């Protein structure tokens, strides 16, 4: 694991236990996410793949293990600062460098698309309004939604909402994008437009961790693949390896059901 020093995110023995350890949503997951990786996470429901993804930016608080991102173990609640004093870890500082896209879009319904996109750059990065809006419009243009900047989320289709959610996260210029089943809540005819945006993002070299059921996408775009079940990481490799030559019986069983 010597090469892992340069990894973007190092996950070590990550655990999420409930009820004094009787329920193990995550049970010792270790993985390195390298810069430029498109890591696809698959597994049956309840396998802990969403919990794993949501732990990466501490939407779920792990009960054990470590996540080193940007040179800092972000699972620590308190850290020593430069003077050696114990201070509270400001997780917001790290979260803004990790974009997240949710299954249910989670756009802010009381704001226009443009305001949705400029809120965090203005409030968190203290960007000035004109600059933030220009950037947001450029991003919207990239996903073909520039003309909807003044609309409210309710006026958009599911696919459009998810494309906005992706560029809203991109507006913060994150180092990594986390996708939590981004196409699961979409009508079938809208899945393609969202996957296209994600493919484009992957081609541009964005580091991505994607929890998905879209096996076609996984095979085409992913360069690494994780298979999880029962909170454990059971198999890891390239999508090609996992699809054509699955080793673990659970993975063989899973693939026989989904392919």
């Amino acid at each position, binding site marked *: 694991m010597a090469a892992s020093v340069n990894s973007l995110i190092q996950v070590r023995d990550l655990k999420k236990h409930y009820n*004094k350890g009787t329920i193990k949503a995550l049970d010792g997951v270790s993985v390195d996410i390298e810069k430029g990786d498109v890591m696809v996470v698959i597994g049956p429901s309840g396998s802990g793949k969403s919990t794993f993804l949501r732990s990466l930016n501490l939407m779920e608080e792990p*009960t054990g293990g470590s996540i080193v991102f940007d040179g800092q173990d972000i699972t620590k609640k308190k850290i020593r600062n430069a003077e050696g004093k114990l201070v509270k870890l400001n997780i*917001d500082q790290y*979260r803004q460098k990790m974009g997240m896209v949710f299954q249910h879009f*989670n756009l*802010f*319904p*009381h704001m226009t698309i443009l305001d949705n996109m400029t809120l*965090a750059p203005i409030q968190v990065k203290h960007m000035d309004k004109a600059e933030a809006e220009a950037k947001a419009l450029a991003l919207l243009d990239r996903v073909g939604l520039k003309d909807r900047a003044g609309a409210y989320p309710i006026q958009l289709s599911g696919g459009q909402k998810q494309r906005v959610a992706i560029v*809203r996260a991109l507006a913060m210029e994150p180092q990594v994008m986390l996708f939590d089943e981004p196409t699961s809540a979409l009508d079938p005819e809208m899945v393609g437009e969202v996957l296209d945006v994600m493919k484009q993002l992957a081609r541009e070299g964005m580091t991505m961790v994607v929890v998905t059921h879209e096996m076609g996408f996984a095979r085409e775009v992913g360069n690494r693949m994780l298979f999880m079940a029962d909170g454990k990481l059971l198999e890891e490799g390239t999508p090609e390896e996992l699809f054509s030559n699955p080793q673990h019986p659970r993975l063989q069983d899973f693939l026989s059901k989904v392919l």
Partner: protein
Amino acid sequence: MDGFIKLSNFSKVVPYMSMFREGLMVTILMSVFTVLIGFVLALILALMRMSNVCPFHFLSTDKDGRLRDGGFLLALSRFNPLSFLATAYVEILRSTPVIVQIFIIYYGVFGMIDLPKVTLLGYIKFDRFFPGVVALGMNSGAYLCEIIRSGLQSVDGGQTEASRSLGLSSSQTMRFIILPQAIRNILPAIANEFVVIIKESAITYTIGVQDIMSAVNAVKGATFIIMEPLLVATAIYFCLCFPTSKLIAYFERRMSRGSKR
């Protein structure tokens, strides 16, 4: 004193109309002040209930600085005395009759405090009016607290997650994401509470507040007729509450337009 309604009896009520007019003013003023006191109290209570003041919070992590996965120390670390007090207050106030609360405030609390015996606007007896408003305000504060709390909690959890994932702090999330959406849900309920208080305030005639109901009592005592003044009171209360609630429903419909996701 018989129960039959006679038209001629209504003419006996007419000389007392100024009492009804003054009673109407008292009822309205009392309701307005009650809602104001109740709202401020409710806001404080709701913030207390949803606060994150845990004096034993340091117990939540083990010596490595990580979250515990259960046990007594984790439970103790989450104990919030502010929330406990506010919850106790709300549950006690909501589980006891309002007339008991009014009597306790009037005889118990203000029995020990001498209020100035002043008369406002020429007919509002301050030493009756004030305890009535305080008691009703304390009561409606408990109910409004739950309205505010449920309004804040009715905002989908995904909204908080989306906001926090963008790097906004919890207070920024409250200010920019949760509050604007919650207020839309809360306002109609607060307006409805106003209508409820207009009706509920009738009970304060038992401590001598000279509202509409006390005007009924006065007519009864002087003329020995009861149904006719009661009908007059009914008409006044109805004319006050019905249009108000219809108006609220109208604004509720208008506000909900376009806010659905």
